[in-house]
């Protein structure tokens, strides 16, 4: 099995090993992230269709945001978003203090692998964007990893 390493590297984002060299992260943000995000987008859209099947009509935007933070998140990660804050002008901030995809990160390797954390949150960002778009809210979603397991999503609703 001589080229196992090469095969692992070629598997790209699906590979669980994060390459150590940081030059990869620049390439990542151009090509890999948008793809991961768009995969998440599709998944988010479809999940919402299933989840809202028997849900009553939503009152307003905040109601939908709450649905994403509670029901969707519970469905995906078995827990709710810890805090949802808004400035009432179309910006919402979701904070998850124990974000499941990051739960297995080694605390010691934080500095070394910090740039790689983006790989793990691009997909959930896409899910949020897809879910909200299926709920009729067009928005942009960005995320930051604050500490080892804490992830903050910022949702900015596009007003036309």
């Amino acid at each position, binding site marked *: *099995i001589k080229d196992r390493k090469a*095969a*692992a590297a070629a598997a790209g984002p*699906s590979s669980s090993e994060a390459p150590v060299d940081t030059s990869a992260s620049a390439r990542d943000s151009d090509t890999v992230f948008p793809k991961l995000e768009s995969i998440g987008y599709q998944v988010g859209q479809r999940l919402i269709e299933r989840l809202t099947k028997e849900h009553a009509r939503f009152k307003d935007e905040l109601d939908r945001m709450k649905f994403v933070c509670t029901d969707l998140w519970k469905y995906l990660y078995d827990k709710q978003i810890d805090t949802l804050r808004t400035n009432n002008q179309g910006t919402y901030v979701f904070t998850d203090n124990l974000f499941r995809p990051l739960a297995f990160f080694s605390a010691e390797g934080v500095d070394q692998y910090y740039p790689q954390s983006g790989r793990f949150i691009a997909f959930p960002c896409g899910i949020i964007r897809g879910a909200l778009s299926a709920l009729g809210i067009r928005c942009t979603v960005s995320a930051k990893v604050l500490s080892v397991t804490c992830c903050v999503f910022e949702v900015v609703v596009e007003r036309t």
Partner: protein
Amino acid sequence: MSAKGKAPLLDNNKVNADLIKLTYGALVAQILKDYEKPEDVNKQLEKLGYNIGVRLVEDFIAHHNIPRCLDFRQTAERVQQAFRFYLGFQPAVGNWAPTGNEFSLIWDNTNPIGDFVEFPDNLRTLQYSRVLCGAIRGGLEMVQIDVAITIAKEFLLGDQATELRIRFNKRLEDALPIGED
């Protein structure tokens, strides 16, 4: 992955089945966009599965106190057990070749990862379950068994079941790196 996607699992190590299936579907769609030819996509899926299998086998052995398999039938049982453990969906083992070196894993009337999937006619050569084949091959390769796997039946293409045909090729000998005795 949980067998029923309805309720999220409380077990920390498990992931919602619907999420996995939808994600895999979206992933296949993305790979198809990137590579265009279904044949190339099959190769990528195989590679993806292979990498999963290579890593998963260690975890599987760590979780189960299993003795050495003495014949291929026991190996088949382990593969079956692994599917139950990781997918929550146990295939039937059957259709043994008289020589005992070839068997099938069969999921009746379902594809374990193929809910929500519709196949367009122009993609009939796409092997959606290829990732499973890759995973089995990768996993067995790590325990020195070389197998060849074909997809005999595909539920998504209108067959009655999903059937993976696994043929024993040879026992792999430990290959030492050059210069080390």
